[in-house]
C-alpha cells in the first residue's frame, strides 16, 4: 500500500532523517517509535506532503507520490491526524469532519450525511455543535480520528493520537483504531504510549537520531540491543549522547 524508500531529509546541516525504508500494508498498523528528536514527525510530514524529502521516494500503490503537496496527497488517499493545537480551538466539530468528507462526497448533502455517519459511529454526534477547543481531550482525538476516517483513506497517519490520555481512554481509542484497521486502511502511527503500540502494532519501525535502527514485530525489536540503548540512553558503540530520556522504555513491555 504505502512504501517508503531510502527517505532522507536535512535542515541546514542537520540530518533529521537518513535512509528510512519501510512498508505499511493495508489492514495493518505500522508503529513509528523512537525517543524525542528521532525524526518521527518529520517522517510523517514527508509522507503527508508537508515537507519534501531530499532523497528517496514515497510510493502509494506502486505510484511515485514523492513531494506532492499535502492537499494532493489527501486526494490520493493519504489522510492524517494532527496534534491539535490551540489555534484551531474555534473550529466546529461537525465542520471539521464535514470538510474532510468532501474527498468522497459530491455536494453539501452528501458531505453532511457522511460526516453525520462518521460522528455517530464514533459516538460523537452530541458534540457536533461544540468547538474543538471545548471538547475533552480524548474526545478531541476521536474527532481528529473521525476527520481522518471520513475521507475513506487508503493510508491514515496518526500523529501521537494517544498523547495525554489516561490508560482507560487509550483503550477506548485503541478499539476505534483497530476497527478501522480491519476495514483495510493502512495505518501508520507515531506513538509514545507503549500500551497502544502493544495493543495495535503489527509492525514496528524504531527511529533514533534520524536513522532506522530496527524494524519488525514488537517482540523482536524490543530485544534489539541498539533499541534498548537508544531508549535507556546507555552508551553503546559510537554512543548517542542526546538521545533523551525514554518516556516509556520498550524493554519493559515484553
Amino acid at each position, binding site marked *: 500500500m504505502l512504501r517508503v524508500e531510502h527517505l532522507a531529509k536535512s535542515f541546514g546541516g542537520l540530518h533529521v532523517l537518513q535512509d528510512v525504508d519501510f512498508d505499511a500494508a493495508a489492514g495493518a498498523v505500522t508503529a513509528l517509535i523512537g525517543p524525542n528528536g528521532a525524526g518521527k514527525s518529520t517522517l510523517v510530514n514527508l509522507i*503527508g*506532503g*508537508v515537507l519534501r524529502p531530499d532523497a528517496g521516494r514515497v510510493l502509494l500503490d506502486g505510484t511515485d507520490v514523492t513531494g506532492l*503537496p*499535502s*492537499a494532493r*496527497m*489527501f*486526494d490520493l488517499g493519504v*489522510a*492524517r491526524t*494532527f496534534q491539535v*493545537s490551540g*489555534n*484551531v*480551538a*474555534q*473550529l*466546529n466539530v*461537525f*465542520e*471539521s469532519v*464535514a*470538510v*474532510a468528507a*468532501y*474527498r468522497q462526497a459530491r455536494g*453539501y448533502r452528501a*458531505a*453532511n450525511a457522511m460526516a*453525520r455517519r462518521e460522528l455517530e459511529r464514533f*459516538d460523537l454526534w*452530541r*458534540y*457536533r*455543535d461544540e*468547538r474543538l*477547543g*471545548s*471538547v*475533552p*481531550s*480524548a*474526545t*478531541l482525538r476521536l474527532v481528529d480520528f473521525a*476527520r481522518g476516517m471520513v*475521507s475513506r483513506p487508503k493510508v491514515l497517519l496518526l500523529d501521537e493520537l494517544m498523547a495525554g490520555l*489516561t490508560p*482507560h*481512554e487509550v483503550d*477506548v481509542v485503541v478499539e476505534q483504531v483497530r476497527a478501522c484497521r480491519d476495514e483495510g486502511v493502512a495505518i501508520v502511527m507515531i506513538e509514545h504510549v507503549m500500551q497502544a503500540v502493544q495493543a495495535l502494532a503489527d509492525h514496528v519501525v524504531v527511529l533514533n537520531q534520524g536513522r532506522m535502527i530496527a524494524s519488525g514485530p514488537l517482540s523482536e525489536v524490543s530485544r534489539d540491543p541498539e533499541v534498548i540503548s537508544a531508549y535507556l540512553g546507555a552508551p553503546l558503540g559510537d554512543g548517542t549522547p542526546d538521545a533523551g530520556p525514554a518516556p516509556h522504555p520498550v524493554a519493559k513491555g515484553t
Partner: protein
Amino acid sequence: MTTRGWFDTPLRRANTIVVVLALAVAVVFPLFADAALTGVGFVALIYAIRNFTWNIAGGFVGLLSLAHASAFGVGAFAVAVLAWGHGWNPWLAMLVGALAAAVLGLVTSLVMSRFGVNAFFYALGTMAITLALQGVAASWDLLGAATGLQNLGAEQGFAALQWFLDPTPFYFIALTFLVLVTVGTALMMRRTRFGRSLPFIREDPVMAASMGVPVVRNQALAMAISMGLTAVPGTLMAQYVQFVSYDSVLTLEIGVAMLVGTIIGGAGTLAGPIVAGIGIAAVEELLRGLEVSSANVSSYTQIVYAVLVIAVLRFGAHGIVPMWESAIQRLSAPRRRPPSGDDPPLVSNPPPVSLSTGGG
C-alpha cells in the same frame, strides 16, 4: 451546519427578531428621512457594504489586506473614466471595475502566497499596493491626476445610475446590494466546500491542506471575490458624490476603516461588519451635529474609532456581535448540553471564548 430553524435556540430567536426589525427599519427609513438624512443612510450602507466585503477575505480567511482600498478606488475610477469620460453605461463600468478589482485581488494573493508572508507582511505588502496605485492616480491625467474627475453628464435615472436631487434610489440600490451579498456570502460559507474550508485556512493552513483544501487557490479566490465586491460600493460612492480623485476614493484611510470596522463589529461574523459600518456612520453624523467644524470631523472620528477599539478589546475582545451573542447566551439560562453517557470521566480543556466562526 446541520439543518436548523430560525427559532431553535434563544440566540437564534433573538437574532431573527433583530434582523427582521433592522430590515424593516432600513426599508422604511427613507420614507421618514429628508434627502440629507437619506444621504447619510446611503453612506452608512456603503460603510457596511465595504466592511462586509473586506470581511470575506479579512475575517473569514484572516488575510489582513489593505489592498481593499485599491479595490474601492478601482470601482470609483472605473465609472469615472469609462462612464463619465467615455460615455459607457455606468452599470457596465461597475462590472468592469469589479472584474478589474477581482483580478487585482487574485494576483495580489498569489504573489503573497508565492513569498509565503505572515500576517504582518501581508498587511504591509497590500498597503504598498494601495500606496502605489494612489501614486499612479495622483500623477496620471487619465485618472484626474491632482485635480480629480467630475461627472459632467446630465442624464438621470436607473439606466444612468444617477439621481441629482433625491438620494433615495441610491439608498435602495445599496440596501439591495448589501442584502444580496449577505445572503450570498452566508450560503457560500455554509453550503459550499470552498466557503466551509475558509475558517480552516484561517486557523491552520497546514491542517487545512491535509484535509484536501487547496489553500493557495482558495485564498486567491477569496481575495478575488472580496476585492471584486469591494469595487461596487466604490462605484456607487463615485456616482453619488459625482467626483473622484486620488485622495477621495483611493486612500489608505479607507482600507484602515474597513479593517477597523470589521474588527470592532466582529471579524468572521456576518452581522459584525454591517453593525459597525452603520454605527460608525451614525457616530460621524452625530459629531457633525455637535457643531464640530467639518474639517475636524475626520479627526474626531479617528478618536472615536480609537475609543471603540479600546472598549471592544477591554470588554469583548472579539467585537460587538460576539459580545452580543455571548450576552444572549448567558441571559438565556445555563443550558449547556452535558456530555452524558458512558464516557469515562474526561479532563476538559480550558473554557472557550464565545465566538461563532463561519457566520453568526
